[in-house]
């Protein structure tokens, strides 16, 4: 069914990708968190739209989880962590914005080429979704690689997870078990990270991962 429903799904997935790019060049933690909240919101809309199009009510649950948990609770919590820890707001990057954007574009091109080619026989909606999802996943990875700060690495990881949810919901009729478990594992992952952040704070008064980097290999 190519038509308005396809266009809307396409637009929402595209928005998600665009927001991934936006995250890539944020250099303040608060701004980054705001963009991430938007990212999660776009995901929630996209999943809800898939639920409507596929007539799969259980996907609304996934959309709701994305909306409440990822777009509201996590950004707020991270916001409070940043305030409480009083960490510096500038994000230290490993590579410059320009380079990161260029690499990001390369990754998107790569995922388009790969996914569109291999899914030639799948239905167009799933196809586009998958290509977008892979792009979002790769951009999330890129963000984790190019940031040194623990909070922004976590945000990178979560936007990577958003890409996975997009892919899972784009695959029509994928069993519910998996979606819930994805959401659930994000929750667990977050708890873990939270604990880590506090421990890191306890020990070194910083959440800059570089401060942890003294051991790399076995330097003595």
């Amino acid at each position, binding site marked *: 069914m190519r038509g308005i429903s396809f266009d809307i799904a396409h637009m929402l997935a595209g928005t998600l990708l665009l927001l991934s790019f936006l995250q890539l060049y944020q250099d303040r933690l608060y701004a980054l968190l705001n963009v991430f909240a938007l990212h999660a919101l776009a995901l929630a809309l996209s999943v809800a739209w898939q639920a409507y199009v596929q007539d799969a009510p259980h996907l609304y649950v996934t959309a709701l989880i994305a909306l409440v948990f990822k777009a509201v609770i996590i950004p707020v919590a991270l916001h409070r962590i940043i305030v409480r820890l009083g960490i510096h707001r500038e994000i230290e990057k490993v590579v410059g914005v320009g380079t990161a954007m260029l690499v990001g574009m390369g990754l998107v091109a790569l995922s388009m080429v790969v996914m569109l080619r*291999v899914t030639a026989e799948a239905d167009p909606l799933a196809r586009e979704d998958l290509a977008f999802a892979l792009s979002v996943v790769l951009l999330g990875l890129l963000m984790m690689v190019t940031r040194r700060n623990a909070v922004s690495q976590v945000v990178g990881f979560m936007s990577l997870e958003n890409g996975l949810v997009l892919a899972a919901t784009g695959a029509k009729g994928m069993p519910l078990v998996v979606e819930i478990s994805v959401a659930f594992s994000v929750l667990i992952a977050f708890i873990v990270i939270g604990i880590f952040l506090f421990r890191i704070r306890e020990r070194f008064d910083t959440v800059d991962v570089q401060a942890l980097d003294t051991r790399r290999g076995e330097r003595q």
Partner: protein
Amino acid sequence: MSLDAVTAILAIPALAAVLLALLPGYWLTAYLNVLAALATFLVALSLFFSRPPQGAYLHIDDLNNVFIVLTTFVGLTSSLFSASYIGHELENGRLTPTFLRFYHTMYQILMFAMNLALVANNIGLMWVAIELATLTTVLMVGIYRTHEALEAAWKYFILGSVGIALALFGTILVYMAARPVIGEGLDAMVWTTLVTRAAEFDPALLNVAFVFLLLGYGTKVGLAPLHAWLPDAHAEGPTPISAVLSGLLLNVALYALLRFKMLLAVNPNVIAPGPLLVTMGLISVVFAAFMLYRRRDIKRMFAYSSIEHMGIIAFAFGMGGPLANFAGLLHMTMHSLTKSAIFFAVGHIAQVKGTQQIAQMGGLTVTNPVLGWGLVLGVVAIAGLPPLGIFMSEFLVVTSTFAREPLLAIVLVFGILIGVAGLFLRLNAIAFGEPRGAVAEAKASYGPMFAHLALVFMTGVYMPPAMVAWFQNVAKLLG
């Protein structure tokens, strides 16, 4: 769901985890931990004789039966070792009673997750289980809360999650490939259904899926370009966890890879997954062998040795064919037993010496003869000297490769030899010569270590025909 053996090997650790979270007291919980592991092992053994029918979520076949018995056995011996090791850690104050409770709970959750990953008949469920296992081990690695432990846990967490995320993407792609053939819904993720219909799947989609699965689960196996988390995680966590990581968790991830390899083998139009595994395996062997030389930390050194051996195993399974698969299975079993035995020894040695630095150890065979000679035996076994079990499996891998790809075999042998030399160089410093470092009486339980070594020795000398037949059968299954 009625209570059959498969449910039991999941229910026992799960219940034990809850119980251990509630109960205080060191001896009581350590005892319970061992008891739960023993019960799980006994139930796993019963699977050899009677198997419950397969369901949509859980199943048992010849392949995962081997893995389950091995996992529960090493789980049992590690819990015995852990009882004495952790007792010592409590005495010298590295762990507090609260963390001890947490540790035991996590131990059982980890056993639960590994068993679930092995018996899962659903590729989504398998993924969830491996994710759970990763998270629990992350928490265990960071348990000492030192600077290094936190760094190791963070690195492990980040790399592990990225790997796990890529594996999920691969899993979704497999579902996408299966959906047009099998239809929507649960059936398209059920392993037993997938493998019967895989020949009709879209080959291009399966190819891409396998690349993601290889990168994802390959990270968890610790294959060479993706291994960065492994040495840190092994070195900084409590030693029983290093033993379980090396001996079991790497195997579980490899098992997941093998399952998908079997899926690809059914479809005639896809890329052969073998060469990919062979390449990564060879890189791991050679790379890890060279890395063995400049290690100063004893646990880190054996972590690199684990990378090397996982490389050999991946290489063997990548070569495929009945003989190489047989060798791969045997090597995996022997490596699990030997490496955990070595970590049992290393744990006590590090406690005696109060450090993990090789430079501050020496003359162990003089100061602590049982421990020292135990370590020597373990290293002799892991180096693959006859007549121990690893010699046999390495010999089989090498000869079967020489018959088919002599060039690859030469590289493999080169890597193995470099690794052996590196290990002995270090062993010489640790076990012989002038005693160095702190001298203390080891309060150790030698049972688990020597039980493992005895098994490895026995297999090297005489393999029971039943075991041979079983492994041959599984090797055929693997294609």
